């Protein structure tokens, strides 16, 4: 069964350092999402890509976060500089198409657990 791949699974960094997370969506999935999940909360959308284009980054803290999906396949999310409040699980999800009247199912990867010291 095809899965969304993420790496690393765990990352510990000191505040003010730069960190990067990688995601490889399910093959053929045009839409890719990055979510952040704080312990005890539901995931919150950071950015959505359709192929290589950003279609929603309204909740991405752009002063320190950046995301790219250069060839419309895998994606990288970067934080620079990391702050203590960035400690969370970073989840990547993908879906087959971007729905107009309904939304296609999003499949999640295992996540990257970030701890900022």
């Amino acid at each position, binding site marked *: 069964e095809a899965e969304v791949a993420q790496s690393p699974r765990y990352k510990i960094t000191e505040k003010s350092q730069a960190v990067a997370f990688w995601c490889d969506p399910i093959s053929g999935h045009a839409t890719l999402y990055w979510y952040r999940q704080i312990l005890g909360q*539901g995931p919150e*959308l950071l950015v959505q890509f359709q192929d290589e284009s950003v279609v*929603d980054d309204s909740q991405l803290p752009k002063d320190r976060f950046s995301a790219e999906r250069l060839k419309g396949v895998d994606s990288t999310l970067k934080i620079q500089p990391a702050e203590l409040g960035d400690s969370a699980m970073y989840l990547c999800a993908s879906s087959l198409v971007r729905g107009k009247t309904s*939304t296609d199912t*999003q499949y999640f990867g295992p*996540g990257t657990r970030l701890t900022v010291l």
Partner: protein
Amino acid sequence: EDQVTQSPEALRLQEGESSSLNCSYTVSGLRGLFWYRQDPGKGPEFLFTLYSAGEEKEKERLKATLTKKESFLHITAPKPEDSATYLCAHPRGGADGLTFGKGTHLIIQP
């Protein structure tokens, strides 16, 4: 503002004791109501999508239902392996990114 509210926040049941989890939502033009299961330290696992009021879907001991304002996840005769956090979500207005509730943490005791 789109909102998803789940209740209860936590639920402890005995093995075999059936119950229901609630998800209430406020969004105009619902484009899908999603249920996910999440085990500790893992990504959410897709369970169901419901698109219209009156729709029902089943999978093993789980059944999801949808009305115009709420969705319920019914769990029948649960087993300890059903212990997890159950999340519901719907697409944000005008986009496809999901707005999630905080989840219901379900514990099934043997």
